């Protein structure tokens, strides 16, 4: 037995906090292994022989082809699941537990889930692309099914009856013919290894011999157990990455160039040397950090440090008010070959009515509520990084490369943090902490300040989209052209040693430069003649810029869908058609479909949303109302991967102030098999409201030298005042064979935001007759548009 005394108190507290029943902590303590859901003394893989030796590393990759790497059964007949994912607050950990418990035939409450620590969980890449449930849950289900199979074999041997004559429920195996003969999983294997090899060319393909259950046999999937992480988040006991404190640690703050692209000329260290707690100024190239013993001392010292910078000879970027003019005029850095269906040129020339419009979406940022942070500990010649980075494995790999350390000397302890919806500055802070920790030989906590986070975190690219559509004499959409430009050159990857900000500031230049990408619409409309083209453009300054682009929640989806689904609405208006009917007609105009049954599922999602909302079929706009408040409703729909969503927004537009309130949201949401309906609804609500913030509030502003949106005043975000009064999430299963035993589970983390921008724009048009084609719809912009239109 390994005593738990080697675990720091806060890890013990953490385990207590995660405990839903008193027995949980007990089994973790007595199971003969050290289990750490996030913490200092984690061990190599689920089974540890010597925790002290383990703390010193090395930290080899966990072998995903071993059942023991995924599942441990304890003597008290409970189980711990080890998965290589991270939960960004959408409850994926709870969903994984449900799925694995179901396949294993154990009660949900008898399980725990350990996530995303590079040295104890298999490398499933952490989070990204809303694929946790769609992709990563499959190996989890299969290995849990395999564990059940192996346990049944063991029981079969014990009782001398074939497995077909055994019954299993709640982790107890019974001889069907003689229920007095029973054995628990804990008695069969508790605390010991399975020693069962798995197969699969890669981690996503991991499998044993057993098959997963048919959907109809799943009992825990489809229920809504509460998220296990929430209690400790509301009683203050959860320890987050931001909370870790280690003996001897120091606090670091960055000093960023005051102007984008500025060169550091000199640092006057005497400006801070006498400050209390001062430890060191570290600088290399244009990277500068100040380190002090205490946090507030580091903040003061970073503010007071005198440094001389040389401005770049040319402006790094146009001012934000000139951004779209610049983007349209500049020569693209790359253009994709247009995708052409039919003969759009001829069709457009022969159309009875042609409509043209262009749309603009500015840079928008992650701007996490808690600025980027990480703590790095260089003890034992290793590097341990405590981070909320959603891709903990990538952070490990990238830091190892950046520091020139062997990969197995670096580990990332993943802990919870503020919203991580893509390539956040958590990547950057992790590298910075590790670099400084190595320089100082002490644990270093890096914490970005608010202005740094808001100005310098990675951005979703700005888009301009030009669209043209042609209607025939009967009002059918016969031709459509989509042409998008994204300011996305030099797009950041995740945790790349060559492109994280510290690396750029130190002078590294990745070659070749990442080309970036634009995006095309995701709908399934049958339009006979289309031309879809995309381009990427670059701002003058490519490196060391606060306008670095990186993945932001459903990268490029909200931008392209804002244009595409606003424009479909414009075509419906031109045709004098109802917005729902116009879309349904475009979807029923063909019988073509694909493996995901995207067309029929589109129809189902739109119809479900319209029915729940109580959609009144009529063309837009409504006759203009008389009072100060104008109301309207709009719809938009999109795919994210295989998940289809239709969003209907009802708005109130105040014609005297320009304020838009989205009073009601309805979402028809089909992500296949739903694991946890309540959890799904909350995620969808969050996704739509997040998109409301992008629709109504968010924009990165800049002059020709620097970003000027640097806090919550200059960078407004949605608030309680803006929350809808009512949100309905309708779970749709539009599969043509809804009861198929292999109904897939698709992702849900991002889809619902995608069409929300256009739904709101369409609703504003319905209310006012004014078409807004430039996000965000802040009061002043809306009011100006209403005034210009005489509304």
């Amino acid at each position, binding site marked *: 037995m390994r005593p738990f005394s080697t675990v720091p108190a806060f890890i013990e507290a953490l385990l207590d906090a995660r405990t839903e029943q008193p027995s949980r902590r007990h089994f973790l303590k007595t199971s003969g292994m050290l289990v750490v859901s996030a913490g200092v003394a984690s061990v190599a893989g689920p089974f540890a022989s010597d925790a002290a030796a383990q703390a010193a590393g090395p930290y080899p990759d966990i072998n995903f082809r071993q059942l023991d790497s995924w599942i441990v059964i304890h003597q008290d007949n409970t189980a711990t699941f080890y998965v290589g994912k991270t939960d960004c607050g959408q409850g994926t950990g709870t969903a994984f537990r449900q799925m694995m418990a179901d396949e294993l035939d154990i009660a949900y409450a008898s399980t725990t889930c350990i996530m995303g620590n590079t040295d104890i969980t298999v490398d499933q890449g952490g989070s990204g692309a809303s694929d946790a449930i769609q992709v990563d849950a499959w190996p989890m289900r299969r290995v849990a099914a395999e564990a059940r199979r192996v346990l049944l074999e063991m029981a079969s041997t014990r009782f001398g009856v074939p497995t077909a004559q055994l019954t299993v429920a709640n982790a107890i195996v019974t001889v069907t013919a003689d229920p007095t003969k029973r054995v628990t999983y804990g008695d069969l294997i508790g605390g010991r290894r399975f020693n069962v090899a798995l197969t699969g060319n890669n981690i996503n393909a991991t499998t044993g011999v057993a098959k997963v259950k048919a959907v109809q046999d799943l009992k825990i999937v489809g229920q809504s157990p509460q998220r296990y992480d929430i209690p400790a988040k509301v*009683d*203050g006991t959860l320890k987050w990455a931001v909370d870790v404190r280690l003996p001897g640690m120091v606090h670091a703050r960055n000093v960023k160039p005051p102007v984008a692209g500025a060169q550091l000329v000199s640092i006057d260290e005497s400006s801070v040397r006498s400050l209390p707690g001062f430890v060191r100024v570290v600088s290399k190239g244009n990277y500068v950090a100040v380190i002090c013993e*205490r946090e507030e001392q580091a903040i003061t010292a970073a503010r007071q440090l005198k440094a001389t910078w040389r401005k770049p000879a040319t402006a790094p970027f146009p001012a934000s008010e000139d951004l779209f003019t610049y983007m349209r005029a500049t020569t693209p850095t790359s253009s994709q070959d247009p995708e052409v269906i039919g003969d759009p040129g001829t069709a457009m020339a022969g159309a009875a009515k042609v409509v043209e419009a262009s749309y603009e979406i500015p840079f928008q940022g992650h701007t*996490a*509520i808690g600025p980027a942070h990480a703590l790095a500990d260089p003890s034992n010649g290793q590097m341990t990084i405590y981070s909320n980075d959603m891709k903990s494995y990538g952070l490990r790999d990238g830091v190892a490369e950046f520091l020139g350390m062997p990969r197995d000397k670096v580990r990332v302890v993943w802990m919870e943090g503020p919203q991580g919806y893509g390539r956040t500055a958590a990547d950057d802070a992790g590298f910075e902490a590790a670099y400084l920790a190595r320089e100082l030989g002490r644990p270093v906590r890096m914490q970005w300040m608010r202005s740094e986070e808001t100005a310098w975190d990675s951005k979703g690219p700005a888009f301009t989209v030009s669209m043209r559509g042609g209607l025939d004499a009967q009002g059918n959409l016969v031709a459509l052209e989509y042409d998008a430009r994204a300011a996305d050159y030099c797009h950041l990857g995740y945790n790349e040693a060559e492109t994280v900000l510290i690396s750029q500031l130190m002078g590294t230049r990745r070659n070749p430069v990442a080309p970036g990408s634009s995006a095309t619409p995701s709908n399934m409309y049958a339009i006979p003649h289309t031309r879809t083209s995309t381009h990427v453009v670059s701002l003058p300054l490519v490196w060391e810029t606060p306008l670095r682009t990186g993945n932001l929640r459903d990268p490029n989806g909200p931008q392209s869908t804002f244009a595409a689904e606003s424009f479909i609405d414009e075509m419906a208006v031109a045709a004098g058609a109802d917005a729902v009917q116009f879309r349904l007609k475009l979807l029923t105009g063909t019988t073509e479909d694909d493996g995901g049954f995207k067309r029929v599922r589109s129809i189902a999602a739109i119809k479900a949303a319209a029915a729940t909302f109580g959609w009144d079929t009529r063309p837009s706009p409504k006759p203009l109302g008389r009072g100060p408040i104008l109301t309207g409703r709009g719809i938009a729909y999109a795919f994210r991967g295989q998940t289809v969503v239709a969003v209907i927004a009802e708005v109130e537009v105040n014609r005297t102030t320009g304020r838009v309130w989205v009073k009601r949201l309805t979402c028809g949401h089909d992500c296949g098999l739903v694991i946890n309906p309540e959890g799904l609804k909350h995620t969808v609500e969050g996704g739509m409201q997040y998109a409301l913030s992008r629709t109504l509030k968010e924009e990165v502003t800049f002059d020709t030298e620097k970003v000027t949106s640097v806090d919550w005043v200059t960078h407004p975000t949605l608030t309680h005042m803006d929350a809808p009064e009512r949100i309905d999430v309708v779970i749709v299963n539009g599969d043509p064979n809804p009861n198929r035993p292999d109904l897939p589970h698709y992702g849900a983390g991002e889809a619902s935001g995608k069409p929300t921008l256009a739904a709101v724009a369409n609703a504003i048009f319905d209310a006012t007759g004014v078409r807004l084609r430039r996000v965000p719809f802040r009061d002043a912009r809306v009011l100006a548009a209403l005034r210009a239109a005489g509304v």
Partner: protein
Amino acid sequence: MSNVTLKVNGLAHTVDVDPATPLLYVLRNDLGLQGPRFGCGLGQCGACTVIINGTAVRSCVTPVSTVRSEITTLEGLAQNGTLHPLQQAWIDEQAPQCGFCQNGQIMTAKALLDKNPNPTDAQIRDGMSRTLCRCMTFYRVQAAIKRVVNKGVA
């Protein structure tokens, strides 16, 4: 540096810090009370909220030496192992997404309901309006507050 004595969640502490140090850093780094969080350091987001004299106070812009009365942090809301009704409502409503801002949401709501146990929907929106959430859990947070209001247990 100088000695500052604080009473937090019923316990007195003396710390040796610069009197201008924001209360937030003393709570988090000296007293290990990490319910309050750093979100902006500017008094704009509410992540660092604590309750002093029944008022929701932003500890990131409160110099530690100016605090005269007892401080309640998120850790101090539960009594004898029983969660505060708001905390329970937060669980029942499954209000958080990532949860990072929720200290501010809960503490601001507590101060709001302590002053006005029966707020209207508009008063809830208004009272919570400066407490930000980047996961946009506003709809559920308001629902959780209304659960408590409707039960009359705050």
